[in-house]
């Protein structure tokens, strides 16, 4: 089954890190990504730009409404994702627990609706 790991974290956390700490954090993510790749479960992954860069669009009475900012304002922001293909929820939760974001934020694990 495919699961999307949605990485949520407070961007303040990243801002407050020193250069060395940031390099270390990036190293952790690199190692995690590499572990997923070696296990042959990784289907895709990206880091997202901060929520301030988000633009939200919806169609209202036929008119396109474009709004500055994310769909929902929260302290924790969606910062990135991993798409993985594993046997079941426990396997997905196992990977999520190893992701660095589980330590400095939280990870929502959502099954992908297979078409």
């Amino acid at each position, binding site marked *: *089954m495919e*699961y999307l790991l949605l990485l949520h974290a407070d961007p303040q956390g990243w801002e407050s890190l020193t250069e060395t700490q940031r390099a270390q954090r990036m190293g952790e993510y690199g190692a995690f990504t590499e572990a997923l790749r070696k296990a042959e479960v990784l289907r895709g992954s990206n880091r997202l730009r901060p929520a301030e860069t988000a633009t939200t669009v919806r169609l209202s009475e036929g008119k396109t409404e474009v709004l500055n900012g994310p769909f929902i304002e929260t302290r924790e922001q969606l910062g990135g994702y991993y798409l993985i293909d594993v*046997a*079941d*929820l*426990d*396997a*997905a*939760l196992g990977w999520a627990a190893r992701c660095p974001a589980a330590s400095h934020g939280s990870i929502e694990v959502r*099954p992908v*609706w*297979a078409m």
Partner: protein
Amino acid sequence: MGDVSATARAAEMAARRSYGKLVAILAARTGDVAGAEDALSEAFGVALADWPGRGVPANAEAWLLTVARRRMVDDVRRRRLDDQASEHFALLEELADPADAHALPDRRLELLFACAHPGIDRQARAPLMLQAVLGFDAGAIASAFLVAPAAMGQRLVRAKTKIRQAGIGFRVPGPAELPQRLDSVLEAIYAAYAEGWTDAAGADPRRGNLAEEAIWLGRLVAALMPNEPEALGLLSLMLHAHARRDARRDVQGEYVPIAAQDVSRWDAAMIDEAEALLHRANALAAPGRYQLEAALQSAHSVRRAGAPVPWAAIVGLYDALQGMSPSPVTALNRAVALAQVDGSIAALAALDAIGGDVRLRDYQPYWAARAELLARTGDAVQARAAYERAIGLERDAAVRRFLQRRAAGIDAP
């Protein structure tokens, strides 16, 4: 008539023995608990129509499984499921021929772990087990848990949908996760037991039965995981408590506290079984919450042999329990036991220390204990006030009358 009812009974007994086993087998590969239940209930329907004429087949479980599997395959053919219909279908095809009909695998443990998965709403776990493993309908479960049937139905549907759509696996967790996950299974069983236990008057047979069904589940887990001390501990705890169920009321239906219970009304065989389980658990040398609680129950059972209750040991057990899983209720019980060892004044001091906990503010036993201790120290005014509070918080009429008698018995001033 005789034949029909005999067949009906045979079918009912087969249902009882086989239900969870068959649901577990049917749902294990697909994760579709609701689909498995529907197919199985149809299979039981066919059995009821078929067996009286032809007789109960030699291997009733395999027969039911074959019919249910066909129903599931037909069902998938009829309506495309929202997700992974083709994969689902392939799995069912693979299952359509039981490899060895005489040795059906027992996957109930896997089913229990799926029902108590931390991804399932905590309040849905015990009801889900009762439904998926024992075949209770949502209405019976709702009345046992004092929840509106529609709300319970919805809770169960959501939980089953979550199992299927989130891909919760039917497997016993690996060693790293096992302790926590097993705890979740045991907690759900204990929750069902506690719901049944509260109906001491036996006014509602469904709630009373719930305690017995929980014991049945406890026996199942203890049988399937005979080397898990906490599984044995929980069963021991439930049996100890259950052995005293009749002694909690006197012949007039009045409440009798444990210390005043007539030991001849305790179920001796059940206590013996509980003791044997606790010994087995202790021999595995991995203490835990349920073993400690069973040991507390066991300490009271020495009264059977006319021995005094070992209160100092009980205080020690509460200390150990408090160290393992701290709770204000444990602290309260410890204080009550302490009164027997160090006297009422020390116990009141212990109660004062936890009295600020908001979780105890509306907890009847806290006020009843306080009242009792205050009365013993001669503070009649405060004691009456505390009894008043306890009486106002109690929903069981027999316990209310007991508290009223205690309050009335306080010596003036």
